[in-house]
């Protein structure tokens, strides 16, 4: 008994660990992420690219109102064609010089000037203005698509990961099936159906993007499911269960905030790929149709006329540059966020 009683001589209950000084303020996890994000030059560059594209596309048309999206420059253009024909009549040579003055209503393929900052295209639309409107449609469409993808992915992935069992199995098998579907051939079919039905050229791209959403939520759902599966085993989730929190509190206050970092990265990276998808569709003439502008269809102009490809770089290069800036910008931001949110990088 002595031995047992000896052990019980209790020292005073004190916290002898050296505490942090009262005035030392460490940063919250969110602030640390922001700081790490801005430490990387590439992510700042990406952010600048994205922000300037937004300003260009959404604020630009409000400031630069000289031309509209589907407003033709009808200032006219005179084309001269000179033809010479030589006849020989009775040893005498006659040269007939014919000058045709062709007056065209539309001022097409105009070079860059003060009037048209980047010139006009083969129809007579102002390229600079159409770039802005093309950006609008690209950004809007891809934001809507990514937003829908994320909502669908979080809900379905969350259900699959949190509840598990047969519902998890069902959702994951649906994912597998959707991942097997070839995207572009089905897009071609849907586009043909849309052509046959009377749908406003303005809205067809939205319908196509909804289809894209429908087949692309699987990646996000898998990501969310995987995250939730691993988070569910964390002891703080067991602690939340032991505390008797309701299921919705556990999901929305404890699980979703911890999935957010990966989700944000996924969103910014898929924004880039959605912009690319939209451009591809428009380039193939499946997406935004004339007369409305899209970066993809602006590049597509070169397929109508070889001359434009060689001699009128101002028609198609700017649209390509815009696509590159958008995709690069979103990818830089996504990469930067991923590095900043990585908890192992403690710098």
């Amino acid at each position, binding site marked *: *008994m002595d031995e*047992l009683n000896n*052990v*019980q001589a*209790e*020292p*005073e*209950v*004190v*916290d*002898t*660990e050296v*505490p*942090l000084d*009262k005035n030392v303020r*460490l940063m*919250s*996890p969110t602030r640390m992420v922001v700081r790490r994000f801005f430490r990387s030059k590439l992510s700042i560059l990406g952010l600048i690219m994205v922000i300037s594209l937004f300003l260009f596309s959404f604020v630009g048309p409000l400031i630069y109102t000289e031309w509209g999206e589907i407003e033709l420059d009808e200032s006219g253009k005179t084309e001269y064609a000179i033809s010479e024909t030589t006849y020989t009549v009775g040893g005498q040579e006659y040269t007939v010089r014919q000058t045709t003055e062709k007056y065209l209503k539309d001022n097409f393929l105009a070079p860059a000037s003060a009037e048209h900052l980047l010139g006009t295209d083969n129809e007579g639309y102002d390229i600079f203005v159409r770039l802005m409107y093309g950006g609008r449609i690209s950004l809007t469409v891809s934001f809507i698509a990514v937003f829908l993808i994320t909502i669908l992915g979080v809900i379905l992935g969350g259900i699959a990961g949190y509840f598990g069992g047969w519902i998890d199995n069902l959702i994951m098998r649906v994912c597998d099936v959707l991942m097997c579907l070839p995207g572009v051939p089905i897009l071609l079919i849907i586009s043909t159906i849309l052509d046959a039905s009377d749908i406003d050229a303005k809205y067809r791209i939205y319908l196509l993007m909804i289809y894209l959403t429908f087949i692309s939520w699987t990646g996000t759902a898998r990501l969310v499911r995987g995250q939730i599966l691993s988070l569910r085993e*964390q*002891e*703080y989730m*067991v*602690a*939340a*269960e*032991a*505390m*008797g*929190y*309701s299921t919705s*509190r556990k999901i929305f*206050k*404890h699980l979703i*905030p*911890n999935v957010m970092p990966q989700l944000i990265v996924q969103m910014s990276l898929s924004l880039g790929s959605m912009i690319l998808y939209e451009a591809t569709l428009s380039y193939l003439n499946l997406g935004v149709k004339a007369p409305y502008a899209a970066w993809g269809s602006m590049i597509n102009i070169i397929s109508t006329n070889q001359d434009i490809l060689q001699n009128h770089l101002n028609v198609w290069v700017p649209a390509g540059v815009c696509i590159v800036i958008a995709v690069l910008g979103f990818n830089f931001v996504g990469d930067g966020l991923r590095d900043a949110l990585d*908890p192992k990088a403690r710098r």
Partner: protein
Amino acid sequence: MADTKENVTPVYDDAALAAEYQAKRQAQIEEDFKEPFDPECILEVRHLRKCFPIKKTITGKVTRELVAVDDVSFKLKAGETLGIVGESGCGKTTTGRAILKLHQPTGGQIIFDGKDITNFDSKQMRDIRKEMQIIFQDPYSSLPPRDTVGGILSEPVEVHNIVPKDKVKDYVLELMDKCGLRDYYFERYPHEFSGGQRQRICIARALSVNPKLVICDEPVSALDVSIQAQIINLLKKLQREMNLAYVFISHDLSVVKFISDKILVMYLGAVMEFGSKEDIFKNPLHPYTKALFSAVPNPDPTAKTERIKLEGDIPSPANPPKGCRFHTRCPYAKEVCKHVTPEYKQYGEGHFAACHLLDEA
């Protein structure tokens, strides 16, 4: 005559013995379930059993299972501490979590505060959760990383309406003071703290809802020895102040010796020995308990202790040995141990053990 009798090896029919044992145990379990609840005890566990499926057919029928906890019974009064000791993988943690119904028990009864909570659904459990809490082994993963200490501690108080909304902060600050946390930690994040301080936060969180029972699942094994002592003393102090009952799970015998009133020794999911601290330490009955205690380092270098060494590894709980679970490693194992499961019997006041050798002596 006596000689020949001893030389004849008795023939054991394993299947028949197993069936007999099962039937006997089933009868015992049914009989025990009819007993009235002990009003003195805050927690009464009767024949707790937890199996995990290893193999399932496509239709979901379990073809093979792992018996993590097999037939654990004990009683615990308010203000008392029960220490559960055993090697890793012996089902200590599963027992603790099954008591809290974080794992639904496969069989047995859990009587908490006069109520049989074994078959409570999750909604009924939610009301009773604030009465029973848990402290985890790893203080790093048991705190949500994106919340401040204040937030972590206020959340349960708000959810369970422990105090009126406007008094939550005062209540939490008082609680932090009680657990040895400084008041300016309120705005801090868990990643700013060391292991010991985090464990204090975990303790504060568990106690924020005024529980009657706390399961301490190896609360100090991830900490430095010097910090261990502080945390153990804190737990003891809080137990005195709040009249808490602890189920203290640990593989560190000196810690268990210091904090426990009763001790339960587990091996491969089954109880080997159960008794008061004095009984277990002064008069261990089961060879496993003896071996376990002989391995405790003695701070006195001149003292000579006889070390009982156990041979071999702990068998897989998915395929436990027949007969006595411990016979593969028991230095005193006899033929009977390999075939007949020993009964869990009382030897002296409140001292139980399961071993054939005790019957012969």
